[in-house]
């Protein structure tokens, strides 16, 4: 019943905008802020891991 509510990620405004600009789905990210809030650092970290992973797969 409450699925719609529980999938809505807590995120900061900056994190949301950053995720949108980078084309990253905010729901995919584990937030490190209070109550699991996605912070801008989380987006940067996720992006870095993504870049590293894709870099590796190319080799």
């Amino acid at each position, binding site marked *: 019943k409450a699925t719609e509510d*529980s999938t809505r990620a*807590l995120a*900061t405004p900056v994190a949301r905008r950053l995720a949108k600009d980078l084309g990253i789905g905010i729901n995919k990210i584990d937030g490190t*802020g*209070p*109550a*699991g*809030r996605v912070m801008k650092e989380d987006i940067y970290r996720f992006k870095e891991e993504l870049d590293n992973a894709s870099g590796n797969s190319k080799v």
Partner: protein
Amino acid sequence: MKNYDIVVLGGGPGGYVAAIKAAQMGAKTALIEKGEIGGVCLNWGCIPTKALLKSAKIYEDMLDSEKFGIEIKDKSMVRINWPKMQERKDKVVKQLTGGVKTLLNRNGVELYQGNGEVVDKNTIKVKGDILKTKNLIIATGASPYIPEVDGLKEAINEGIAITSKEILELKELPKRLIIMGGGVISTEFAILYNALGVEVNIIQRSDRILGNIEKDIRDSMASIMQKKGITIHFNANILSVQRNRMSIESNEKQLILEGDKILISVGNRPNVEGLQNLGLKIDKKGISTNDRMETNIQGVYAIGDVNGKYNLAHVASAEGIAAVENILGKSTSINYNKIPSCIYGFPEVGSAGLTEEEAKEQGHEVIISTFPVAANGKALAEGESEGFIKIVADKKYGEVLGVHILAAHATDMIAEAVTTMELEGTVHELAKAIHPHPTLSEIVMEAAHGAIDKPIHIFKK
């Protein structure tokens, strides 16, 4: 005949803000005002009452100054100069309304002074002028409701029974004041005149004053007012008014009260006369709108007191901006779950978002956390330690749903709550954010801690 993108009818805090915003966004805009620019808020509402309250606060502090180590040999030397107090208030009002006129002018809003008659949704007449417009924003406000009471009309004609407008223009300070109604405006006037040494009686129909306010705050405020010497007659029926005497029945007892003035403050009615042609959906509260300020007629918007949602100036202004943005293609809506409202007095109330009851009604599982002002260092240093904060949060993430503060500077403090809710903030951030010491705002942090683990400065098992 002149053509406009937007015509705004009524120049209160709803209308004048809408007009400035519209002009700033490049719309050709006209504003029509039949009375004073600034509406109720600037002329007979928010501003003059706060100017007088400041004077009253200083008077109260002076009478109480020994507590703070300042002596006046003879207290009877301290005298209220009522005409001077009024003069200062009037000067503040003039300065602000003058400022608004300048702003309208510099932003290029065309101002029509006169009564606006709505011919149809695209045509408005003001005196000799005919204005054609693509969009109409109705911001005509509301007027005090005058109830049917035996003898009240006569008392009005004699100038004894008055509304909030006339009470701000009294030539003399009354000795005894009877206030009909126990809402926010009644409360502010009661505290104001009580501080100025006036005997105040409040007549309240139900068993509580401040019916819309959070229940613990409402109850505390009532008992603080009673301690100040304000008499509140609960469960009271007004039987009749005979000049300056009022017969009431309160808790099954009959009483006759005497007052030099009787303030009628039992609610508002929307100013909708002359708008019938438009075919608007109107009920007792006002013109129906959605959260984008749209009425049932396309191109017609209604903002502020006339839509009857909230009787608050900042809501009127926010609705004005929203209406303009929606007209000009920038979709905006108002979230009525996050509106702040204040009571100005000694102490003050600042309240935003949902009460415990409202949150539960909306289906939230809630956490409630309170913290007393008396455990705050700054409050003790200031000698103003009445009150408390109550935070209502959703259990799941701790999202803040409502914050209710009773405290000396509550009206300055509630902005933090509003912004937190705008940011979907939780009690975790409120607790983590380092609040400066010593400030009253530390009670927000402490109460937030209380919602998560434990506050530091009070013992909880």
